């Protein structure tokens, strides 16, 4: 297929602005799927994603559109919608020449719209603004167009008005893709250069490598080289996603599809690598991607110690399809053997945990998440710290640095004060305010990542009654007065409850955690003192009084069965408890460290 007849594009949007629905409409209108298939969000093929209505992994599909008597091939490269997966967004965008910027006709420009639009501009893409949900009973289309102009610098006259749900003006979108987005450059006879933008492990076929051909042609049966990995393989199969994998003979310049090369290990295919022809090598590989940095860590421990190996296997399997997730074995005095796992963000963490518990049926005990810290040690050494348990002796630390994020809020004007208060309370540094319209403003703060990963999003939603949105990017590490806060339960230091906090909030946080633990740990037959301490100094204390009475009077006839089952259930529940010295601590208590922040 001639590059002139190819268009590669993404849809970028804030969450819930209708991206998946629009994608499905495009598929439906071009005959790639049936009316019945349309009812499901077919681009999201992971259960967890469908459940949460978000896309985690990039997906791709080739559709055909008739325009002025010619058939065009439009390749839609789907992008994840959540800030945790910004890295995957940039990967997808690099494989496109244009993007549909989808904005909700009522909600207007939101934080992720801005973030994604900037990514698209930086990637030199042609942007087509699309105002979606024009069928809603209440819309603010004119204001939304104004926002598109002032915030994003796009021409509002170029914006399309559609309803993805009702299928209104979808043809205009398809035509605009052909008319406005430039066709890919590159010639079929050039030396082959194809960008590896994703990969997936298939049990039967091995690694499926997702490609965007920049120049040249890849054919079934030829030899190719992964330039970075330096490995040469035979191309066993070539195909496109329509949306089902559909084999074809070749992929030419501009086309998007997959190859299967018999590689069995996902780790051997590097995202961002360049595929070339060993017999006709190009001068240079394509510019790749930088590896995403894991910023959020937590410990995951099997409740049953015997599940340790099973957990290791499952983590390995998950990491096959998600290279942005890491795990290394660790031990805790309190929890035994487990893994320290690294994630792109909190949502990413939740998704992995859910998969392990739901799909693999492993009961997990998860410690409160923490960010990565950078420590400058005496002797000019720096170290990255992803576990509060490993904080070195205070005397050896020259500088304790924490990751800082630039956070972009979009809120209505009457909530500006609330957002500023929220940020000031969390050690934020104010940057700018910009009015998108008389009613809405964009506020930029620099905030410690640790302060936003826990509950910033929930707090934002609550102080703005659901209307505020935020997005952030990590801008580097900054020195801060940080200390390790230890928690002692009946005199025993519980390493898995240790956390790193700013000295100014240590006492308040310590008190809140002790209070929370008091609620979570049930009474024992003895008194349990709970203490928060920095070094040897106790800064907060609570006491759980001894259990004094636990006897149910009635136990008659059939009640014996009911009563016995009740007690058995309680005993079963105890399996989710971990024993520390003489005290049993429930799983929930380990996360209460997080919730304790909410009470402040």
């Amino acid at each position: 297929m001639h590059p002139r007849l190819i268009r590669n594009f993404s849809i970028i949007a804030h969450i819930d602005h209708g991206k998946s629905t629009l994608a499905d409409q495009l598929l439906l209108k071009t005959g790639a799927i049936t009316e019945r298939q349309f009812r499901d969000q077919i681009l999201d093929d992971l259960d967890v994603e469908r459940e949460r209505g978000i896309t985690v992994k990039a997906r791709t599909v080739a559709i055909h559109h008739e325009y002025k008597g010619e058939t065009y091939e439009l390749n839609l490269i789907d992008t994840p919608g959540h800030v945790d997966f910004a890295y995957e967004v940039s990967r997808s965008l690099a494989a496109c020449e244009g993007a549909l910027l989808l904005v909700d006709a009522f909600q207007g420009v939101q934080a992720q719209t801005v973030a994604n639009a900037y990514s698209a501009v930086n990637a030199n893409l042609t942007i087509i603004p699309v105002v979606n949900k024009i069928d809603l009973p209440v819309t603010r289309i004119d204001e939304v167009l104004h926002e598109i102009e002032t915030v994003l610098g796009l021409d509002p006259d170029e914006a399309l008005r559609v309803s993805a749900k009702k299928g209104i003006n979808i043809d205009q979108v398809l035509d605009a893709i052909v008319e406005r987005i430039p066709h890919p450059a590159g010639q079929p006879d050039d030396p082959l250069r194809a960008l590896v933008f994703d990969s997936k492990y298939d049990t039967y076929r091995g690694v499926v490598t997702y490609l965007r051909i920049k120049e040249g042609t890849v054919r079934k049966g030829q030899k190719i080289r992964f330039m970075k990995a330096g490995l040469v393989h035979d191309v066993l199969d070539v195909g496109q996603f329509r949306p089902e994998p559909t084999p074809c003979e070749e992929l030419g310049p501009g086309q998007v599809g997959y190859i299967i090369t018999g590689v069995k290990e996902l780790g051997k295919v590097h995202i961002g690598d360049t595929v070339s022809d060993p017999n006709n090598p190009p001068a240079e590989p394509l510019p790749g991607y930088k590896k995403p940095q894991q910023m959020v860590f937590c410990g995951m421990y099997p409740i049953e110690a015997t599940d340790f190996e099973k957990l290791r296997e499952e983590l390995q399997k998950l990491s096959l399809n998600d290279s942005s997730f890491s795990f290394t074995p660790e031990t805790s005095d309190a929890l035994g053997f487990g893994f320290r796992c690294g994630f792109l963000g909190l949502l990413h963490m939740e998704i992995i945990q859910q998969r392990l518990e739901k799909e693999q049926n492993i009961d997990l005990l998860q410690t409160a998440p923490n960010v990565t810290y950078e420590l400058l040690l005496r002797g000019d050494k720096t170290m990255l710290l992803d576990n509060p348990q490993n904080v070195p002796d205070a005397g050896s630390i020259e500088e304790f640095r924490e990751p800082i994020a630039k956070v972009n809020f979009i809120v209505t004007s009457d909530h500006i004060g609330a957002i500023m208060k929220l940020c000031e309370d969390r050690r934020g540094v104010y940057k700018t305010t910009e009015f998108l319209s008389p009613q809405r403003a964009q506020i930029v703060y620099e905030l410690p990542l640790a302060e936003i990963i826990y509950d910033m999003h929930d707090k934002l939603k609550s102080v703005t009654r659901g209307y505020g949105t935020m997005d952030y990017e990590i801008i580097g590490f900054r020195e801060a007065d940080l200390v390790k806060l230890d928690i002692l339960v009946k005199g025993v230091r519980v390493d898995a409850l240790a956390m790193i906090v700013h000295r100014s909030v240590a006492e308040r946080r310590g008190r809140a955690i002790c209070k929370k633990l008091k609620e979570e740990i049930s009474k024992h037959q003895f008194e349990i003192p709970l203490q928060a301490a920095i070094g040897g100094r106790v800064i907060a204390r609570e006491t759980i009084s001894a259990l004094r009475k636990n006897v149910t009077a009635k136990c008659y006839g059939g009640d014996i069965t009911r009563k016995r089952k009740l007690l058995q259930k309680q005993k079963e529940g105890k399996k989710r408890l971990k024993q520390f010295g003489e005290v049993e601590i429930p799983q929930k208590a380990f996360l209460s460290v997080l919730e304790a922040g909410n009470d402040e």
Partner: protein
Amino acid sequence: MSSEILISPHDGATTPVRRPASDAGNRVPRSAYIHVPFCAHRCGYCDFTLVARRDDLVTPYLDALEQDLQTLADPQPVDTLFFGGGTPTHLDPAALRRLIELACGWFPLHDAAEFSVEANPFGLDEEKIAVLADGGVNRVSLGVQSFDLEMLRFLERDHTGDDALHVVDRVRRRIENVSLDLIFGVPGQTRELWQQTLDQAIALAPAHISTYGLTFEKGTTFWSRRLKGTIAPVPDDLERAMYGDAMDRLTAAGFVQYELSNFARPGRECRHNQTYWRQDPYFGHGPGAARYLRGKRSMNHRSVTTWIRRIQAGESPIAEIDELSPEDRAREAIYLGLRQADGVSRRELFERTGFHLDDLAAAAIREHVGAGLLSDDGESLRLTREGRFLADTVSGDFL
């Protein structure tokens, strides 16, 4: 029952080994329970199987019960017969008479059998008492709960303290063996008030007293009021002190605490309830009733109308079957044994279940004996006084 200690042929030492047990469940049932699911109204704390203001169902209930009893094929002589509720004495005299005749027809009473009926003070008049006495009832368990009007109103009981006092006299003129149920830990109840209730009960000199800590059961109005925060359980320490008062005062007055919540004059223990706690087999009929036959416990459907409908349609009224493995049965035996003053006898447990107590629960025994909650004389394991306060915690560890 003789203890069988097998002699190992090799070393000659006496080594008790697990052997097929003489299964308690396989013995012939000597007890029967009949559930009578009618009340004038449902009290706020009650989650028992019953219907209020549905006296129109009494005849269909009795018809269904008659049909259901026919599945027994032959009359089954028993040593204990128990009518529980609901309020069996809510039935009018004619219905009550029919119920007794029905039950005694299918469960003929042996000499010296115990025939208990639960009753509420309200409406228990001379006529009904006569029906009971003439029908052979020789034990009445009265749902007195309290003598204090304020407590009774809170519990939504329909009688007064005076009603209770009078009805005890009235019953005893015909049926001497009377038991009183009392509830403590009622929101608003002070320790003094509870002590006074105990003393009033003692002054009546009944044969038997049961004391219950108020519990908040799912599905009751008390449960939802507690969730809403309009009522709160009394503090732990107060409830503990009240239970302690019951043990102290009743024991001092000559009652024996033969089970966690049951106190009796010597020889006046409720033999029917002991059947349950000893894991002996028993028949059970009526909505929500349980039976324990051939090692299997099964429960009837708890809905009165469903129970009736099923029997009318010739279907089984059973909604749930609880079949325990030999080990779980042994564990349940320990759990039930600990509720009783006699505790768990190692010898008896082994004879009945084929399991050794120490094989099943060495760690739990060590822990709770160490904490002073259990006493162990080498043969039997019993809750200590302190252990009784924490009976659920302790006995739960044996399940």
